[in-house]
Each structure stands twice: as structure tokens, then as C-alpha cells.
């Protein structure tokens, strides 16, 4: 699944696409990421390139949809990957690579929110324009969904984004967020209800 516009942004030396991104349904490719990380730990930097191509796009979308600001998303994204690089020799495949990666990102996001408590949550960049009347319904809904996501409480946002973006299992989301499975269920329930409410009548037209 390619990302529109990605090729134009990223230089030829560092192509990024998520065509080979793994999902939690594919145990073979999950194992592949762990193997790649171990290969990277022993000095195979090409293995990192593959990991980055595989997980980079989805990770950035998760972070961006969480914080709603390009600059902060890039900062957190970069910090997350650099921590992966720095931790290469300490990496032990006790958990899925993807879970480990998103846990690091989740912690970085929480840290960022703690540090930026004084900042307004949504800057103009983070709040999309009001839907235009002639805009197709699905685009309107998408914009409203973006706004509604940013208004969710932090942990509910993490939970629902991990679900929407990666289709992770309850246990995986619980592991990333550091909570129990029942808590994940509960957060999902509240978050979904809020999002539906925010979309209003448009939700029914989807």
C-alpha cells in the first residue's frame, strides 16, 4: 500500500514505502522484523533500512495524528528511531519489534505532552479547516475525524489510533500503553462513542 506523495518527499537514497509493512496478522513478517533488528544489532545497517521502510510510514502517521503538528511529530519520530538505533545492542526479541517500537513512540509522546503542558493542545495546523459544503462527504468526515481525534483524552487517543492505524490486538495495545486488556477495551469503547458523536449525522452517511 503506497502513500500518496511519499515518493516526492523522500530522496532517492532513502525511499520509503510501506508496501512490505507487516500487520499483526502476519507472524512470519513479525518474526522478520525481529530478525532484522538482531541483524542490525550485529552491524548490518541494511537491515535497519528495511525495518525503517517497513515501519516508518505507519509510525509517523500514528505520531502525527496524535500530536497534530508536523514539527513536533518529526521531533518525536526522529527521537523514537534514534532510540531504536542507540538500543540496538540491548534489544532482545522478547516482544514483537512493532510493539517495542510503538511503546517507545508512545512514551515519547507522553513525555512531549508533559513538557508542553503550557502549550495549547491544538494549534491552527492541528485543527483542519471547517468542512466545505461542496466537499465530498467522506472528505468532510475525515477532517472531522481528525479534529475529533485531537480532542480525545490522551490515552483514549493512543488506544484508538493504535487500533485504527495498526489493527493491533488488545494485548499489544495494552503492552504499548502499559495498561490492562480491560482498560484498553474500556478506552476503546469511550473513544469510539466520542468519535461517532463528533461525526454526528455524517457518520450515518458513511
Amino acid at each position, binding site marked *: *500500500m503506497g*502513500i*500518496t*506523495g*511519499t515518493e516526492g*518527499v*523522500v*530522496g532517492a*537514497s*532513502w525511499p*520509503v514505502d*510501506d508496501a512490505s509493512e*507487516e*500487520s499483526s*496478522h502476519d507472524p512470519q513478517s513479525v518474526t522478520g522484523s525481529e530478525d532484522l533488528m538482531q541483524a*542490525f544489532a550485529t*552491524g548490518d*545497517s541494511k537491515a*535497519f533500512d528495511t525495518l*525503517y521502510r517497513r515501519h*516508518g*510510514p*505507519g509510525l*509517523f*502517521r500514528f505520531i502525527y*495524528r496524535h500530536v497534530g503538528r508536523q514539527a513536533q*511529530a*518529526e521531533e518525536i*519520530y*526522529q527521537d523514537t*528511531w*534514534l532510540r531504536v*538505533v542507540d538500543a*540496538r*545492542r540491548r534489544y532482545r526479541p522478547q516482544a514483537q519489534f512493532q510493539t517495542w517500537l510503538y511503546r517507545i513512540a508512545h512514551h515519547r509522546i507522553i513525555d512531549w505532552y508533559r513538557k508542553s503542558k503550557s502549550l495549547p493542545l491544538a494549534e491552527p495546523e492541528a485543527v483542519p479547516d471547517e468542512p466545505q459544503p461542496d466537499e465530498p462527504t*467522506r*472528505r468532510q*468526515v*475525515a477532517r472531522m*475525524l*481528525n479534529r475529533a481525534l485531537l480532542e480525545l483524552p490522551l490515552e483514549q487517543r493512543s488506544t484508538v489510533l493504535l*487500533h*485504527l*492505524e*495498526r*489493527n*493491533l*490486538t*488488545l*494485548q499489544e*495495545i495494552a503492552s504499548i500503553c502499559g495498561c490492562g486488556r480491560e482498560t*484498553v*477495551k474500556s478506552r*476503546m*469503547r469511550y473513544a*469510539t462513542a466520542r*468519535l*461517532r458523536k463528533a*461525526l454526528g449525522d455524517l457518520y450515518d452517511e*458513511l
Partner: protein
Amino acid sequence: MTNFEPQSGTLGETAEHPKTDPKLIRAYRTLNEDGDAPVPSPTVHDLIRERAHRPPPGGRWIWPASLAASLALCTTLVFQLARVVQPNPPSGTARTESLLPAPAIDAGSERPAPAVGGGVDDGGVTSVVAGTNPSPALDSPEFWWEQLRLHANNADREGFLATWEVYQQHRDDTPLPDDLRRWIADNQLPLPGLSDG
């Protein structure tokens, strides 16, 4: 953009996955379509890639075994040679320049500075050559401690071990200072003779 197809019309929760709302998933997918997918800038990609391809700092770089062994041997030979040379030759007997390395003894030390290279009249080489100075402090524990500290401060385990080996031949019963003991413990150096000093 999700990596899975929502099953149309199913809202049931499996044992593993949270409840799925196909409409929300569709809306989220739309959010990342049509050029709206957020992507990091090329600068960020390049920085991450550069770090990933850079050798780890101070990490896997290991002293080549032969180099470490050579250094240890050289250090041992130098000290052995210096030991063979009479520390207190008869008055008036000229001596060649000491081969001892720079000792870096504290300025406030009461012990005389051991010989160092060069011809400066610093109370070391010149006076030893003239035969007026006592031993170049090979038997001084402080001398060895300073040598060990030099290695410790440079995080030079190999150098530390080499010096320690020679130090064992000269040490007396004076207990090792705490800072050196701590450094040895912190670096987990299995050193013979540590417990009895």
C-alpha cells in the same frame, strides 16, 4: 491508512482485537489518502539513516588483541629495564636517561618526582643523571597509583591491567586507595592481589 480490511457490517469483538467500527476505519483511511498522508521531511530521514549507518560510539571498537598484548609487553619491559638500572649509582657516576614514563605525581607530594624524559632541570632526570637524586620512586605506592589513575581517567582498561601487572612486583602492604578500588570494582576487573592490598 490501515493495513487491514474491515469486515463490512461486523462490529463483533474477537478474543484478541478490540471492537471494530468499519465506518471509523474507512474515515481514518480517507484521512490519509489523496496526498494528505503525513510524511516526515527528507532531513529527518537522512538524519536517522546517518545515525543508523554510523558505527556505534565507543562500542564495538575493540583493542586488537595483538596491539593490547604488545602494549602490555612494552610497558612491562620498560619498567623491568628501569628497575635493572641502579637507582642510586655511586656519586659522580653518569647514568643514561631514565626510561620511565611521565609520572604525574601531585605537586604537593613529598616524594621526589621520578625521572622524566627531557633535559629540563626539574629535579628528575637531571638530578638522577647527576646521581644526586634518590630512586625514581618505583617502590613508591603513590607513583603507581598515579600511573593507574592516568589509565583510569582515560578509561584505558588495557593500560590499567598492564600497569597493574608490573605494580604487583613493586607494591608493599600499603592499601590501595578507595578511588582506585572503586574504579576497579566499577569496571569489574578481576585483578590478582587486590584483596590483600
